[in-house]
């Protein structure tokens, strides 16, 4: 990944065209709804403006290259974990929060440095083993402080926050080391967001039966099945992203996004419902917090990563 490689990559160029097209269609849809059908589009317009910032930002980072991509996903993970820590109250403990930040930096550092044995970009062994060390470091904190009261909650929140937002999401940065980085990364971002949109749209049109009424009352079985159907088609349409994939990998890619994306969304809903909050933050106007935007991606990324590694290796 580099600026020149991005310019030469047909995959990158196609996705840029696709993004411009999607943004154009989005603007046209909002315009038609607003001026032709006189609908209230304030919320959609706010969300659209958010996309107008997010999409060019993601492309700019991918264009800049591997290091910029890993650095960007590191920042996203740090600020996403900050939202989690603020929402759960863990943020009041700066030592534990700081330890998780260091863990996130270490995970992404492992994605950045070459493997000392093979010289390949990204130290996979360290990346996979780091959760053990970070968990050990987090468990050490109450021992050093000689504190027990309430520490199970603190430690459990820190470990789950690190594993979910730091390590699982960290797989996205590691994918930047692959020969097919543009295809993998842009497929994941595009397909997961499309899965979200499809679930929402199918739910609005066909939704009758609640999916998980105690977790996310607005989600329906119809929306979920519709999104799964759309997501299973998408890899075939975006085959150019991973031309080395066979039908099995394409099917698995669709299932991982279709099922994993919705499970990621529901997992974050479980957390939010338990905390009694609507959004994890307000960083992106019209979208809520960073975590509300990437919740599906967090679940999908490691599943896709290890599927790819199993069939084709990473490089």
């Amino acid at each position, binding site marked *: 990944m580099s600026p020149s490689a991005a310019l030469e990559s047909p995959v990158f160029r196609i996705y840029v065209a696709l993004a411009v097209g999607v943004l154009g269609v989005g603007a046209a849809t909002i315009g038609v709804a607003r001026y032709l059908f006189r609908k209230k589009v304030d919320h959609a317009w706010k969300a659209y403006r958010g996309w107008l910032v997010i999409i060019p930002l993601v492309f700019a980072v991918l264009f800049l290259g591997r290091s910029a991509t890993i650095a960007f996903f590191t920042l996203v993970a740090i600020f996403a974990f*900050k*939202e989690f820590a*603020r*929402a*759960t*109250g863990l*943020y*009041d403990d*700066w030592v534990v*929060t*700081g330890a998780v930040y260091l863990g996130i930096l270490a995970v992404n550092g492992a994605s950045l440095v070459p493997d000392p044995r093979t010289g390949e970009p990204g130290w996979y062994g360290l990346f996979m083993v780091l959760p053990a060390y970070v968990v050990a470091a987090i468990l050490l904190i109450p021992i050093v402080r000689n504190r027990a009261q309430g520490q199970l*909650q603190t430690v459990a929140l820190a470990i789950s926050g690190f594993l979910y937002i730091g390590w699982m999401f960290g797989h996205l940065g590691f994918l930047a080391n692959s020969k097919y980085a543009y295809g993998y990364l842009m497929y994941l971002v595009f397909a997961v967001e499309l899965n979200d949109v499809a679930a929402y749209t199918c739910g609005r049109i066909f939704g009758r039966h609640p999916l998980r009424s105690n977790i996310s009352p607005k989600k329906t079985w119809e929306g979920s099945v519709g999104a799964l159907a759309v997501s299973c088609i998408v890899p075939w349409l975006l085959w150019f992203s991973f031309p080395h994939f066979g039908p099995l990998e394409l099917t698995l890619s669709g299932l991982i996004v279709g099922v994993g994306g919705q499970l990621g969304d529901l997992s974050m809903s479980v957390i939010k419902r*338990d*905390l*009694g*909050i*609507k*959004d*994890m*933050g*307000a*960083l992106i*106007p019209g979208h809520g*917090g960073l975590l509300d935007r990437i919740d599906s991606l967090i679940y999908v990324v490691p599943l896709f990563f290890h599927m790819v590694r199993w069939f084709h290796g990473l490089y």
Partner: protein
Amino acid sequence: MEPWQYDTADDLDQTPIERLRKFPRRPEMFVFGLRLGAAALIRLWLRLYHRLTVVGAENLPPSGSFVIAANHASHLDALSIVSALPIGKVHRVFPAAAKDYFFVSLPRLALAAIVINALPFDRRRSIRRSLTLCHDLLAQSDNVLVLFPEGTRSAAGEIGPFKPGIGLLLAGTPHPAVPCYLAGTHDAWPKGAWLPRPKKVRVTFGRPLVFSDRERGKQAAVQIADQLRQAILALAESRREADNKGKRSGPLQ
């Protein structure tokens, strides 16, 4: 099993910019880190470029909350006072800054809230509410509130009349007020100048004054403001005399 109790932040629905605008601000790890880094750089700049000297630091109360009341002629004023205090106190020092100037545009907001740790003082519409903020701040332990009772930067560098707000805040309270005379900041960076010039800056702290015996009221407020102004003028005069003495005796030694 008992459900866990979560201490969720009460400002989750606010954007980071809205959170910076709010006062009192919730402690933020990144903001504290940035402020500490900025404080170290500002100290270095003031000591090297403006040869900052501090006189009368022994007059600062060692504990408890107090007010520093200073003359105001430059953007360097608040930075100089903060830099004259121990760096460990940087998150506990709150210079009052004009809400209509510092808390509007994003760069100024970032500067005021992150670097200066400013208290937004609404000098136009709700002075009472701003004074309540100051009062609440002093009610907590070990806070330092920096006030510029002139209300704005003096264009000519002279010490102008003091507004009575500081008197309203201090009358009948046990919080000491330390008069502070800032010399050289006007020459170094006057109102309207784009960049600071390499002029000497000196911060002089006087003996703290306490107004716990004063009854709260407009008259007492005006008197307290005037008393603090006189104390700062006296500091200016004594520094001038000391300087002249130094100049006269300097070449003979």
